[in-house]
Structure formats: structure tokens, C-alpha cells
């Protein structure tokens, strides 16, 4: 029965996290939808933790090889995702400082 109670726990977490996700992401400005997608991509690469365990525990040849490729793929998403999101957000500038000249 232990495994079914852990299933229920997992379902609770999934549903509540999905709910938070909806509420939080609904508020993201459409202006930032592209960086949002690259950021969620980087966060999603947290799957790397599962892959790291596969490589590190080395339970079988197959699992270590699959895990290795998985770590490479996920790490490239983490690094690339954060890098490009940062580059994009740096570009978004407000005209506020120059507002006086622009408004006139």
C-alpha cells in the first residue's frame, strides 16, 4: 500500500504544480512569450537529475550509456536555455529614460 500512497502524493503535487503553473504563466506578458519558452525549456532540463543518477549508479552498461547521452542533452538545454533567455531579456529596453524626447 506504500506505493499507492506515494502515487497519491505524486498526483497531489502534479495537480497543484500544474495549477500554480497556469496561474503564474497566465500573467506572463505576451511580450515575453519567446523568452518564457526558452526559460521553461531550461527549467524542464531538470530531468538531468534522473540522468545523473543513471550514469553515477552505473547499474548496467545500457543504463549508463543512455544516462550519459541524456545528461549531455539536458545539460546543453540548461546552458543554452539560460544563455539565450538572458540575451533576449537584455534586449528588452523601455523608452522611459528617453521618454521626454520621444513624447515631444
Amino acid at each position, binding site marked *: 500500500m*506504500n*506505493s499507492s500512497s*506515494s502515487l497519491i502524493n505524486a498526483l497531489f*503535487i*502534479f495537480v497543484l*504544480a*500544474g495549477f*500554480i*503553473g*497556469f496561474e*503564474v*504563466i497566465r500573467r*506572463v506578458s*505576451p*511580450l515575453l*512569450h*519567446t523568452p*518564457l519558452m*526558452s*526559460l521553461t*525549456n*531550461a*527549467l*524542464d*532540463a*531538470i*530531468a538531468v*537529475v*534522473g*540522468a*545523473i543518477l*543513471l*550514469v*553515477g*549508479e*552505473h547499474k*548496467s552498461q545500457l543504463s*549508463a550509456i*543512455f*544516462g550519459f547521452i*541524456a*545528461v*549531455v*542533452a*539536458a545539460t*546543453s538545454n*540548461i*546552458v*543554452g536555455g539560460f544563455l*539565450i*533567455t*538572458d540575451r*533576449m531579456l537584455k*534586449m*528588452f*529596453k*523601455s*523608452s*522611459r529614460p528617453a521618454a521626454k524626447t520621444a513624447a*515631444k
Partner: protein
Amino acid sequence: MTPELAGGQVVIELLYLVASVLFILSLKWMSSPTTARHGIWAGEVGMVLAICGTLLHHGIIDYKLIAIALVLGTIIGVPLGRVAMTAVPQRTALSHAFGALCVTLVGSAEFYLRSPGISRFMMSVLSIEVILGGLTVTGSLMAAGKLQEILPQRPLTYKGQNLVNFLLLVAALVIAVWLIVHPESRTLFPFMILIALTFGVLLIIPIGGADMPTVISLLNGYAGLSAAAMGFVLDSKLLIIAGALDGSSGLILSIIMSKAMNRSFTNVLFGAFGQVQASATATEEAKPIRSATPEEAAAILSAASRVIIVPGYGMAVAQAQHKVRELFDSLSKRGVDVRFAIHPVAGRMPGHMNVLLAEADIPYDRLIEMDEINGDFPQTDVALVIGANDVTNPAARSDHSSPIYGMPILDVDKAHTVMVIKRSMNPGFAGIDNPLYYLDNTLMLFGDAKAFVGSIVRELSGGHG
């Protein structure tokens, strides 16, 4: 499963908890451009904490291989983070493929490690994980190939396409159910993966460029959901949370995109997008159009007091965004109020136009979304359409027979003067004729977007001395 947590385990779980909170904050801070960069910081810290926590697991015996993989991933990731802004849609598609690849490989490895003794519930989520993951891998690679123009961009359709796709999905599910009941049938597992991979290819074949924003969002959602399923398999709360966040983000964006194209969400979910309409474009008699030269366009623009520029994917293709910035500067200097109207599906992914214009140094408070700016067109002197077509087509409002009838559009035709920069009178990608071009208040500006905007800018500065 874990009756009593050991001390080290508690530390790891607490690190994961902090990481989860940081991930949620990270997305929350994306709500505004002023706080968004804190969001990256929170995400990065959360990620580092989670990885450090994982490395503390006492089961890990081989650190060297992990280190090599992390370094290799970084070497691949850095150039992927440095691509040009015009290439962001294909980069995003590629990273969905990488994310899904990771999930699918981990799922497969877990199956072979646990296989005969795998519980029914575990096998169910594992099947969801690898089927969703598998179809996202190939689907995203196909999407990236189309966006990078390695693959033909035209939608490929054939008879019975939906039936074939449906049967494949059923076959994958039958194998999944068989494996749930008989988890010892290890030889069947690769077939399930193979079918999922094939399904991903076939799903994207009928998709054309204009549908890419919806498809990329949908693949984003699938990648997230498969990661959440992986969280169930590994009993990792952190992974469930991150997957649920990513999944809901992708689904919300797909809903927004499908609404902006007037497609129901279920229509999108079942892959019934991208059908080519039987092009019943009867060759109509040549309707009169009016065209103008750069000099005339410059004169009209400099006499205006309110201008709205409507950019589309054509602007990105012509690489015209920097010339558009020069036009924006030159008009703003003359006291003209210039704003940009952004349609949700303009470009090849959600928010694509905003990123391109922000890169060209156009302040983000000048980029206005469709619902907010549509009421302003009647008080606008000039609407300048650059490389956009269907999103300005008034037939979507009035013509019941139009394939895009009902799609929300930017009401450019209500401006006093509409100017459309276009290469020729050929109908756009979707092959739908645009009545906007024949209106009395429309001026066609024929030419390459970058060159034409450049000549307008030259006229404007020349006229001023």
C-alpha cells in the same frame, strides 16, 4: 518507498524543495520585463542547487563519467545559446527535442533496469513518458528542420493521413497496455518507442510555416508532460513540479495561439491543423490597385501624426528590422507617434516579433498587442504593414467563405491610409487572397522590405536637409 529518510536524504530533499520554489519564482518574475532577469537568476540558482543535491546521493559511484557528460553538454549548449535571434524558433524546437530525448532515454533505461518486477502503475506512467517523449523528439526535429529550411516548408498531405496517424497511436497504446499486463515482454518495448518516433514525424509532415507557433507550443507542452511522467517514475517531486510548470506553460501558449488562429484547442490537440484548403481561388478579373514610390510613402508618413507599424514574418525573412528601427527613429524625431501592432501568431513562434524588434533596439513599451491596439486604428493616420498578410486580412471579419473566417485580425483597414510593403501581388504563404490590397485607402509599396524601408528612411532624412 522510503520509509525513513536518512540524514543525507533529508538534505537532498530540502535542496530540491528550495529549487522547486525558485523555479516557480523564476516563472512568476517573467510577468514583466523589469523583473524578468531576476527570473533567470532564480532559475539558475535552483538548477545548481538541484544538481548539487543529486550529486550528494550515496548511490553514485562514478563521478568521472558524470563530469565528462556535463562538460560535453556545456560545449554543445554554449553555441546553442548564441544563435542569431532570427534562428530562435528552430533553436527552441531543437531544445524541445533534446529535452524529450533525455526523458525518453531515462525512461527506456529505467524500463530495462526494473522490467519484470515493474508495477502496473509504474509501467503506465513509464509508457506515457516514453510515448510522449519519443514523439516529441522526432516531431521537434522535424519542426526544427522545416524552420531551418533543411526540410520542405510546404505542408505535405495525403489521403487517409489522419487515419494512419490514429492507427499508429492506437498501436503504441496497445503495446503499452500489453506491457502493463506483461511487463516481462522486454522485446516489445523498442517497438513502442519506434512507433512513437514514427508518429512524431508523421504529425509534423502536414504542418506549414504559419502553424509553427501553435506546434512549437504544443511540443513544448508535450516535453513538459513527459518530464512530469518521468517524475512519477523516479518518484521525484522536483521533476513532477518542473514538468507540470513546463507542461502548463506549453499548453497555455498553444491555447493562446490556437485562439489567435481561430482553431479550437481540441482541433489542435488531435493534429488536425495545417490542412491545405482546396484552393478555390478562381482567377478573378484584375482589380485596380494603387501603388506608391518611396518618395510618396515618405511624404505621407512625415505628414502623419500617428503611425502604427504592423510587422510580420516577411520582415524577419527580409532582415528588415534594423531598417525599421531607423524609420522609427526618424519618424519619432519628427514628432510622429509610432507604435507597433503585434499579432499573437506573427512570426514563427509565440512572441517572435517582440524579440526581433527588441533586438533592433525598439523600446518594448512601443510594442502593443492586438487586443490593446485594435481600437486605435480608426484614429491612426497611417498603418504600415511590413511582411504581414493573413493577420491583416479583412476577409476574416466579413467573408464567411474565407478559410480564415473568424480569425482575429489587426484592423489596419480602418486606418486613414494603409501602406503595404510587399514583393509582388502573389498571395502569401497560405495562398489566400487579401481584399485589403484593393481598398481605396490602401497603397501598395512593391519591393523588398529592407530596401524599401531603407529608401523611405533616406527620403525622410534627405527631405529634412
